[in-house]
Structures are given as C-alpha cells and as structure tokens.
C-alpha cells in the first residue's frame, strides 16, 4: 500500500474542498444532457439522468457536512469552483474529458466513466500524473504529481486519511452542529442526508457517496439496495433495467428500457458565450442564465455556511434554472450549422451581472432579495 497523502486537518480540508469541486463538476454535464431531451420523450433515460444529478447534489451536501464537521468552510464561489468545459475530472482522471453535450451514446459513455468503479489497472489508488496532463487540474491537492484512477479511489484516500487524522487529533470534529444540513432540508429519491458529528458519521457519509456512485464491494447495489450510478448509466447502454440477482459482469436482465436517440436537441458541445452572436437577445439570455447559475451557487454557499434552511430556497432556484436551460436549449444557435444553443456555465464578468442588465437578472435579483 502506498503512503497516505493526508496527514493533518489541513490536508483533509483541501481534499474535501476538492471533493466539492468534483461533485459539482458532474452536474452541468448531467443537466445539459438531461434537458437536451425533447419534452415528454425518453422518459426512462430522463429519469435516470435526473436522479443522478439530484444525487450529486446530495453528495455535494454530504461533503459540505463533513467539511463543516471538521471546522472547514465550504466555498462554492471562488473563481475555479466551476471548471471550464471540456475538462478533466478534478481528481485527475486523465483518460477521458468531460464535455457538456446532448444526450447521446457518447454522453452515456462519459457518464459511465465518471461513475466507474474503483478498479485502478494495477491496484494502485494513486498514479503519477501523466506528463501531458494540464497542470491546472491537479489531482491530489497535497501531492501535485499524483492523481486518482476513479472517484472511488479518491474517496478511499479521504476515508483513510480521515481515520488517520482522527486518531491523531481528538478534537477533529469541532465544527458547529448548527452548520449541518439535516434530513428535513433535503431529501431525494436515493438516500438521506447524514448529519456528521464524529468519525463514524463522517465515514458513513463518505462511504455512502462512494457506494452510490459505483456500488458496494463490486456489487451493483449499494447498502440502501439502490442501484449505483455507474450501473444506472449502463442500463442506458444496454437498453434494459438491472434487477436483483444481476451481476456486474453480465448485461442487465430486467424490463426493457426505451431510448430514442433522435428525440434530442442537437446542442453545441461545450458552447461558450463567444459562440453566440454578439449583442443578440439570445446571448443576453445565456448571460442571464449564467448569472442565475452563479447566484444559485452563492445561495448554496450561504446555506452550507450556517443557513441550512436556505436549501429549500435553493430547490426553487434549481427549478427556475431548469426553465432557463430549457428555453436556451430550444433556441437554434445562429451560425452553427443547425446546432442548438446551450448554457455555458461561465462565471459572469462584472458587466454581465450589472444590475438591471436585463429582465432575467432583475427577476433573479429580486428573488434573492425576498
């Protein structure tokens, strides 16, 4: 076994910050694929992606709880919190990039890779970062030269580090309990929020995240008997649901699942504001969306920093963002040869978010103020 890269509370905090970046980084790709699906079509696929996206929100919340429990300060507003797509995953997986792309076999392929089980080729959790890797996306936040094969391994490292540090620092869990998000504030399909107050609950929270992503001990279900994300996406690949008794090595044997790859808006992959016609109404709508999206992250940030009840408001925000994404995606993107527009998830510049820049931001600002 290789030597741990987490030696003290600071290391842990760095890792947990990175975990939040990581959990969030998967959300824009899932949302883009989900909302590219034509309304009232592809129900099976839409549900699968939607739920995974909601559960990534749960994971984000769980990491925030662990981070708060050890006295850290979640930060969702710093400039590098949202990656610029295409991107590598922040844990350093380098054999694939994550795009914002419409629902397609390629998208499903990427989703499977994002959620793939912890099975590093040579059994090593940490691997040397390849020389071609972009340096900005570091892997281990404490060892620049190391990276992880999968999210599972990344969490395994944190779990191990947490145990090491907890043994050394008896007052590791010194966070203010009032900063914890409780189950009342967030419940979704799979799993409940775990309140973190000690090593035990911290481990449960982190293990839950890892299991929900990739399954438990190589099985396809997690402890709650929910299908792990990886296998949910595999169902899209096979066009069939898994059922109890299926093994990870075989194709699923449950009910059929219908996919219509054509009932999808052909959105431009990794669209940027620069792709939009300058000064167009559409560009303004895309800028407004970004402003709302970052305001949403700001709200989450406040919620995770002592105002957990704001998570209820954050849900309204998500629903409003949904309407915004839908509106953008259904607009053709002029000059793109028939492709459609897509939200760009770029951090607004001062000019974009100037008050009264448009009706949209005005509404958003008012909604926050209330």
């Amino acid at each position, binding site marked *: 076994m290789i030597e741990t890269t987490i030696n003290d509370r600071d290391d842990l905090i760095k890792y947990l910050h990175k975990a939040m970046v990581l959990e969030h980084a998967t959300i824009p790709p899932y949302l883009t694929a989900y909302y590219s699906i*034509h*309304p009232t079509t592809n129900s099976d696929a839409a549900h699968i992606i939607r739920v995974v996206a909601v559960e990534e929100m749960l994971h984000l919340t769980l990491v925030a709880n662990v981070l708060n429990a050890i006295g850290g300060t979640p930060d969702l507003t710093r400039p590098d919190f949202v990656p610029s797509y295409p991107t590598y995953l922040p844990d350093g997986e380098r054999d694939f990039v994550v795009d914002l792309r419409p629902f397609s076999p390629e998208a499903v392929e990427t989703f499977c890779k994002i959620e793939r089980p912890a099975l590093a080729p040579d059994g090593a959790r940490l691997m040397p970062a390849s020389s071609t890797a972009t340096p900005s996306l570091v892997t281990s936040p404490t060892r620049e030269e190391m990276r992880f094969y999968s999210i599972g391994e990344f969490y395994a490292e944190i779990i191990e580090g947490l145990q090491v540090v907890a043994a050394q620092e008896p007052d590791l869990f010194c966070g203010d309990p009032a900063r914890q998000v409780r189950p009342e504030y967030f419940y979704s399909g799979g799993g409940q929020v775990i309140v973190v107050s000690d090593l035990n609950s911290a481990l449960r929270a982190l293990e839950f995240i890892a299991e929900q992503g990739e399954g438990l001990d190589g099985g396809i279900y997690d402890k709650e008997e929910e299908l792990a994300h990886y296998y949910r996406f595999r169902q899209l690949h096979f066009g069939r649901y898994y059922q109890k008794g299926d093994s990870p090595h075989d194709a699923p044997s449950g009910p059929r699942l219908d996919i219509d790859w054509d009932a999808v808006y052909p959105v431009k992959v990794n669209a940027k504001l620069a792709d939009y016609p300058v000064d167009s*109404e559409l560009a303004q*709508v895309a800028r407004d969306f970004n402003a709302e999206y970052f305001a949403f992250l700001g709200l989450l940030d406040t919620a995770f920093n002592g105002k957990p009840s704001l998570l209820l408001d954050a*849900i*309204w925000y998500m*629903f409003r963002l949904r309407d915004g994404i839908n509106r953008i995606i*259904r*607009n053709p993107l002029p000059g793109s040869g028939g492709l459609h527009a897509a939200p760009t998830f770029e951090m607004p510049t001062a000019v974009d978010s100037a008050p009264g820049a448009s009706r949209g931001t005005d509404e958003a600002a008012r909604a926050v103020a209330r």
Partner: protein
Amino acid sequence: MTPDALEDFLSLSVDLTAFERTDLLGTGLARQYLAKVRDACGEDVVTALLEAHRAARTEAAEDGARPDPQRLDRALRHRIFSEERLGPVARNVIKLWYAGTWYGLPPEWTDSYGAQPAAETSTVTAASYQEGLLWRAIAANPPGAKAPGYGAWARPPAIEDRYLKGRSHDRTG
C-alpha cells in the same frame, strides 16, 4: 416550410404575445405552431396574415426606424384584428401561444372560408400545454408541470413590476 415564413411568423407572434423571440423559440414549438395554423386555415390565409403583419410594421415605421408602438397598434387593428378573414386567425394564434391549444374557428369563419380537416379544437402536442405563455404571464406554472418547488407558493408571485402598477404587495412577506 421556408425559413422566411418561420421568421415572419415569429415576428408576428412577438407583436401578438409581447414575449421575446427567444421565449417563443424557447417553447420548442414555433415550427409546430406555424404548421398547425397552416393545417387549420390553409396556406393562403397564413401568407395573407404574414403579409398584413409586414405591411402593418412598415406602415408604423417612419423612414425605416423601429415601428412606433401607437401606430403599430392602429395598423394591426386596421389590417388584421378587424379583418374578416385574418382577425379570427390572429386571435387564434394568440391563444395558441398562450394556451398551447388550437381552438376551433368560429362557424362564421368556416362558413365563409371553408373548413380544413385540422380545424377543430386540439392540443398540438403533449408538450404544448406545458409551454403555454399564459402561465408565465401570471407567474405560475402550468398545473401538472414545471413545478416551482416545495413551499414556493408561500412567497408572493414573481409578477413583473410593470404589470403590478403600484399595487405591489408587501414583499417582505
């Protein structure tokens, strides 16, 4: 369907609905709606309606500037809303955008201009009901879709200020 007709249809619809082009395209239904009007009223009527709208805009614009709202209103009333053949169709286009439903044209209309096979009241697609602009106009969601989230109903409706005309409610709620 020529792209020009779609552009003209959008331009007409912006004036009829007071929603922006991106909002209309954002329903994902502009094409289907144009096709629906064609199927229900016939190609000639649609062409005449789009032409009348172009003419109204030209009439309302002084020397190629943006049309003056008051003059445009008058031109639309004279050229479209009061027109025997075009008036009912234009009103139906408004309702189509707002409700997502094509309402059957009044019998006087079909008596004079003939009934097309697709003329009866119908929803265009299952999605069209959800995309009705009516719901956005009153800051609500179409019942059964686009939910606003738990408890959002306890806050005042996010109706745009310009429609509240000072009757603005206590926003501190």
